[in-house]
């Protein structure tokens, strides 16, 4: 039981818990809009931003690196939009292209930095790929809390317009809700959460935190507020258990541990939940037998 009261556990747990809850809430927007994988592309695309910020500022301080991450996240998003708007290339291919191109740039810069004597202490950069929650500092947790509070507040204030924007775009245009404003708002909330979460869960896996809670919620509930609430609760619990497991057992990284706990919850929901695909398959068979 002494793990639960240890200082480092509390710091890491607090950070991942707040991050997971906020991601669950904000991620629901892109899941319902059918754009979940944009989060994946942005997650990968932030990596060169992190390395570049390190090269410019020369310190591995999260506050500086996050600026780079956000800039590159926004850049990647705009490039994806440009490609899909101005050519016949589909969103799917554009995502794959930008994701790999940016991540490749990150790896090129990383190998340059790590082979160069001018840049000291560059080892920590690797932490941003897979996440290294164990090295999270108090300041990292403050950053996560700040980003989470701001985005949740924005979400709360704009709850009605966001809801209409998600479920009925035509109606929201009729009401005079600026689409570009909403797109920008969602983008900023998503990117800032990804940026602060990089150190905790890493660039590759963070998209899971954005998608999984909403899908779990959707399997059990039908109305948006309930989906949100259940998703946030499950995300919070998963973050807690995942952090506990990674602290209790040596060699288990926190980010992947949280993702695995969340995946277990998802797997159980898929099998047990009343509207899950497995239940649906069984029901279909039953109907078939009756005919």
């Amino acid at each position, binding site marked *: 039981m002494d793990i639960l009261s240890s200082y480092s556990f509390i710091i890491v747990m607090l950070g991942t818990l707040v991050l997971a809850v906020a991601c669950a809430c904000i991620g629901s927007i892109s899941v319902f809009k059918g754009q979940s994988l944009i989060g994946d592309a942005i997650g990968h695309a932030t990596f060169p931003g992190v390395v570049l910020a390190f090269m410019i500022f020369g310190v591995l301080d999260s506050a500086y690196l996050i600026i780079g991450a956000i800039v590159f996240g926004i850049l990647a998003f705009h490039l994806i939009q440009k490609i899909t708007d101005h050519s016949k290339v589909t969103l799917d291919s554009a995502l*794959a292209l930008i994701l790999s191109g940016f991540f*490749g*740039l990150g790896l090129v810069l990383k*190998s340059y930095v790590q*082979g160069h004597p001018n840049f000291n202490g560059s080892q920590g950069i690797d932490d941003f790929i897979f996440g290294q929650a164990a090295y999270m500092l108090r300041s990292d947790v403050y950053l996560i809390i700040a980003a989470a509070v701001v985005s949740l507040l924005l979400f709360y204030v704009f709850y009605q317009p966001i809801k209409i924007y998600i479920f009925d775009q035509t109606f929201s245009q009729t009401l005079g809700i600026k689409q570009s404003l909403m797109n920008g708002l969602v983008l900023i909330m998503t990117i800032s959460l990804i940026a602060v979460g990089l150190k905790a869960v890493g660039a590759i896996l963070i998209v899971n935190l954005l998608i999984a809670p909403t*899908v779990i919620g959707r399997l059990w509930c039908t109305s948006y507020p309930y989906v949100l609430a259940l998703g946030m609760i499950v995300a919070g619990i998963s973050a807690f258990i995942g952090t506990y497991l990674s602290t209790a057992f040596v060699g*288990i990284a926190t980010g992947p541990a949280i993702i695995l706990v969340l995946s277990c919850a998802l797997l159980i929901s898929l099998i047990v939940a009343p509207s899950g695909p497995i239940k649906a398959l069984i029901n279909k068979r039953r109907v078939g037998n009756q005919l």
Partner: protein
Amino acid sequence: MIEVLLVLLLTALSTALLGVFLVLRGQAMTTDAISHTILLGIVIAFFITNDLRSPLLIIGATLVGLITVYLIEVIGQSKLVSKDAATGLVFTSLFALAVILVSKYLDNIHLDLDIVLMGQVLFAPLNRIEILGIDLPYALWQLAIVLLINVTFVALFYKELKLSSFDPVYSIVSGFSTSIIYYSLMSLVSVTAVTAFDAVGTILVISFFTAPAATAFLLSKKLSTMIWISLMFAAINSLVGGTFGYLTDTSISGSVAVISMISFFLVFLFRKDGPILSKIHLPVP
């Protein structure tokens, strides 16, 4: 140096050939998912054989690749979860499992996470094997076989691939099984991805699959033209990127991915109906 470039070139050609059909079908991100999850197959097969060169690794990885595709299909077909959400969920879960297995049990073995990410094409010539009296890197042989298989597949099933990519409904009506074509394509994607794994790593292989094909897609209106242009860009990207990475002593596969993205954007900007040339009104002769 020449052998390194050859390995890159063969990787690029065998991936870009399949990439054409992936881009046309909108399956680029499914490929991304496969390229991540094959790591799990490699790790599990490695636990069984303890040999990074065992053919069982390819079989394990291909199986996991197919399981990935199947899971995405099953979850995505339920009306509750869109297909791209399913993709994002399946690959991150399996990849997280693989990362934990690697970091917990294989910490001091060659299979470290850096190589998983970017591959090490520079080490490829060190692993040599002699077949028919010709002494060539192991990876080169492997890739040559994969390229041959891919070319044969596309040549034999060209009509079926074409039909099921452009008009799946008509293809079913005509009596082709689209799912057999789909799953054979996806198994070849897995085999190719795991063969390319050593050279370019799990994440950047997606650039090899999609970037040349997407570039060719901008320039062509015919499938056969698209395939040739795609192969051409694959060759240019891999040779230019490989040389750049080699000379600047940076990540070679990363350089190829960057060069591929740059060549896409050059074509994107300067193609005939692109954002720049369409604005310039050429004087009518």
